[in-house]
């Protein structure tokens, strides 16, 4: 497969590996799962950077490789059958080469993760408080009482009322929003510098969603940490993120600042995502425009552009380039790149004349 421009920047083959400047830098990440049906290419050549104090949103449909990416960063694929290749740099350290034991000391300490379904992600047989102080004690040599004090402190910080009492409650005694707060408290207990939130608000109702997002933003301001927010909710992205990576079929199809993605999207799939987002400032007669077709098979990835079977604009490209050649991720303007064969000028015209007015 062709190299993306990013993977050319760092040439591993010649051994001149220089740590990137960014706080977290993912370079040409591949996560493949061998299965009975064939090799599932969940993530295929993904690269992005995250800086401290910034929020990176990763958006895409279910099965586009968002969660797999986040678990690769956390090193949670180690010990499984997944094949992870590429580089993951965190503050000058390359993590993909780390052993499980090396990763273990980073997990929960420097990098923490908030999972999407808090009920199933919390252990049903231990109290919420115990689970949080366990996360604290594994990285800090402190007494049980000190750990309890810290756990109560973070529970209070994430807005659990009377945290000292709720410490001894079991997850099933918490409401959905409280459980997600408890998950966040667990992730924050060691003041991690990298926080990965995997659809933290998907299981919650809208009012609680807003509170949780506000909470994350406040905590980030306080600790100047980097956040990766994985979601399929573009509303959440617009609300919280600084930069956005749009994923499709395990690849990054477009990335840029949040304003680029919302006001100057440059790739038919992103147009489709925007078109399928419900908006209140529109009359009800204007129908949502879903993207036709289904997400691609990750075993038999479509040849050429991954999005070509569902792309409405294939006819804007000369010949059958979309089906035969895999497009590179090309930077159009500083920090904004897209993976598409359509001529950049044509794309801008399509966006301003055909897509934007109908949104």
């Amino acid at each position, binding site marked *: 497969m062709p190299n993306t421009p990013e993977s050319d920047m760092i040439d591993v083959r010649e051994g001149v590996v220089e740590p990137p400047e960014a706080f977290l830098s993912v370079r040409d990440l591949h996560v493949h799962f061998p299965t009975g049906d064939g090799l599932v290419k969940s993530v295929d050549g993904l690269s992005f950077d995250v800086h401290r104090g910034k929020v990176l949103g990763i958006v895409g449909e279910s099965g586009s490789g968002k969660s797999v990416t986040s*678990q690769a960063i*956390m090193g*949670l694929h180690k010990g499984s059958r997944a094949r992870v290749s590429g580089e993951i740099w965190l503050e000058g350290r390359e993590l993909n080469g780390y052993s*499980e034991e090396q990763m*273990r*000391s*980073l*997990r*929960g*300490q420097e990098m*923490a*993760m908030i*999972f999407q*379904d808090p009920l*199933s*992600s*919390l*252990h*049903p*047989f231990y*109290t919420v408080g115990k689970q949080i102080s*366990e*996360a604290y004690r*594994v*990285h800090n040599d402190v007494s049980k009482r000190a750990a309890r004090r810290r756990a109560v402190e973070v529970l209070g910080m994430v807005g659990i009322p009377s945290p000292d009492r709720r410490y001894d409650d*079991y997850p*099933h005694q918490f409401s959905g929003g409280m459980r997600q707060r408890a*998950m966040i408290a*667990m992730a924050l207990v060691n003041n991690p510098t990298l926080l990965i939130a995997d659809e933290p608000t998907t299981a919650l109702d809208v009012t609680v969603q807003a509170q949780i997002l506000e909470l994350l933003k406040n905590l980030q301001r306080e600790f100047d940490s980097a956040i990766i927010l994985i979601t399929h909710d573009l509303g959440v992205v617009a609300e919280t993120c600084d930069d956005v990576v749009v994923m499709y079929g395990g690849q990054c199809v477009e990335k840029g600042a949040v304003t680029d993605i919302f006001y100057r999207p440059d790739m038919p799939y992103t147009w489709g995502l925007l078109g399928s987002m419900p908006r209140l400032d529109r009359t009800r007669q204007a129908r949502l425009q879903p993207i036709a077709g289904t997400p691609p098979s990750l075993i038999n990835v479509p040849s050429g552009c991954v999005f070509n079977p569902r792309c409405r604009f294939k006819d804007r490209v000369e010949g059958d380039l979309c089906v035969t050649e895999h497009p590179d991720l090309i930077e159009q303007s500083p920090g904004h790149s897209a993976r598409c064969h359509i001529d950049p000028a044509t794309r801008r015209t399509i966006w301003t004349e055909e897509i934007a007015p109908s949104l």
Partner: protein
Amino acid sequence: MIQYIVRRILGSILVVFAVSLVTFLIFQLAPKLSKTSPAYYYIGKNPQPSQVKAIEHRFGFDLPWYEQYWHYIKGIFAGQSLSNGDSTIHCAAPCLGYSFRYNSSVSSLIVHALPVSLSLAVGAAILWLVGGVLVGTLSGLKPGSWIDRIGMTGALGAVSLPIFFTGPILLLVFEYKLKWLPDVSYASLTSDPVQWFKCFILPWIALSFLFAALYARLTRANMLETMGEDYIRTARAKGLPRRTVVVKHGLRAALTPIATIFGIDVGTLIGTTVITETVFNLHGLGGLLIQAIQTQDLPIIMGVTLIASIALVAANLVVDIFYGFIDPRVSYA
């Protein structure tokens, strides 16, 4: 919680009563259907009608069934005297009846047999629980590995081998060939623990073999499922060491359902270890029951059935209460 336990105990007593009534009625009904008096079980062939009458009167077979049941229940709590005019046999409480074949009260027969059955069941249970869970956990952690293959092949073998096959083989090897356990005879745990252990070790192994295999498979399946749960991923994401993830988070959850089955299995086993008892020449409840059935010794059959049902009901009760401690989601409302 206390209220729940009290309610459950009362319920359990009711169940035991129902069992006693049903067994009683079955043995009341059986002679009526075959149109023979139960007195015939007690006397020889071709008895005089007067003898039959006398026996019927002595055991109260001429009374209506509810009165007989009342006497039976009263006997359990207050004892019973069985008189035929010349001699009186006193059967002290708890009197479950009197066996004329053994010339002994049923309760004393059971008192002798119960420790054997308990030793057998509980000892084997500990063995199979430890062995089965260990093999199952190791297999479940690495499905497809050589540990898993050996463990599960062994389990399949153990499930397929009946006790009347493994028992004699164990005896042949350890008692007759290697002579590690020569002339073991039964001794109670309190009188001679070493002898007791020697006497039971082979039966335990034979009996636990089958159950260990079942528990290994069950643990493996539960472990596989648990290790795929989201909370295991959370535990790993916290940076917990693998041992903590497996034991504290994985095994803890995987074993909880096994606790239920374990209690019921032990409870059931107390009255049903007939084959093991026979193979190893132990005199437990199972053997007592089988002999009683063969000789149609009604009081023993009823007595053992009652005791076995009490064991099962008690095991269930213990499991249900215990479950409340190990699974906080269970509420006793």
